[in-house]
């Protein structure tokens, strides 16, 4: 473990709490198991990967409350385009 990371913003307990909450709430709101969510992320990535090259680990999905409903947010950071269509 990097000693200096103890003093950076990332390791502050409030930031850890916020990150944990975001994960917990996404699961609570989806009302699906962690497994199905991983599977969904994987399948979505597979479809998109036909067109783009992705860094799979960094796919992030969340549900954000907007008024009375939720908006599904998915971040698919990618390296480069495979095909040009």
């Amino acid at each position, binding site marked *: 473990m990097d000693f200096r990371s103890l003093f950076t*913003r990332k390791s502050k307990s*409030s930031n850890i709490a916020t990150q944990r*909450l975001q994960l917990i*709430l996404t699961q*609570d*709101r989806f009302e699906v198991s962690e497994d199905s969510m991983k599977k969904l992320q994987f399948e979505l990535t597979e479809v998109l990967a036909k067109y783009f090259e992705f860094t799979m680990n960094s796919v992030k999905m969340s549900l*954000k*409350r907007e008024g009375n409903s939720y908006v599904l947010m998915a971040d698919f950071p990618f390296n480069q385009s495979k095909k040009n269509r």
Partner: protein
Amino acid sequence: MGKVIVITSGKGGVGKTTSTANLGTALAMIGKTVVVVDADVGLRNLDVVMGLESRVVYTSMDVIEKRCDLDKALVKDRRVEDLMLLAASQRNRKDDIKPEQMQEVCEKLKEEYDFVLVDSPAGIEQGFRNAAAGADEAIIITTPDVSAIRDADRIIGLLQHQGIDSINLIINRLSPTLVKKGNMISKNDVLDILNIDLLGVVPEDTGVIASTNRGVPLVHNDGSPGAEAYIRIARRMTGQRVPIPEMRDDNFFSNILNWFSRNK
């Protein structure tokens, strides 16, 4: 015609009863007519926090079971005009009351009073459902920690499902010093996560404990940060535009510590 506002949280012990007592008192001090309703059947506390326990004769159960008229069951707070308490029965259980019965009581009260504040029990079961049954609006109380915010999120979902559109948030027991140190979730992070409208922020205030000991809501002794926060929230509830101030961390020692850790 007034409105019924349920004050609820999901998680226990985050300040629902404290907030009901203080907002009810503050609203009455502004000149509104107010009833605070204890919906925590079997574990009533609002009477004690308001210092009215010795004068409670009848409860909402007596009204529902037609042992007494609604007007007669209301206990008048003598320290301020137009503030009444409807106590909960201590001998009954939460499922002895049905949501429709609570709703009927609330409907009658809002014909006569500007604000009917319902102090909800913790949890998402019958007690909560009863408390929310007659509500036009909701105030969610949360403290800035993972489990309280998680439970608040659940409650918001349930209230929206019930068709309550106006749901506002109060963040209670925020400590600017801890936020600054990075040991407490900040106001903005709570808002970002829950994404509902903020009604106000109440700081951690040791005066709350003394006021509960005495049975005199904090807002009677203005000047304390908690009292000022509740008074501002009450004014916002009446439609006044009152800005939400950024909380200052005026702990000199922690400022110094912070300066050091920032400059490492």
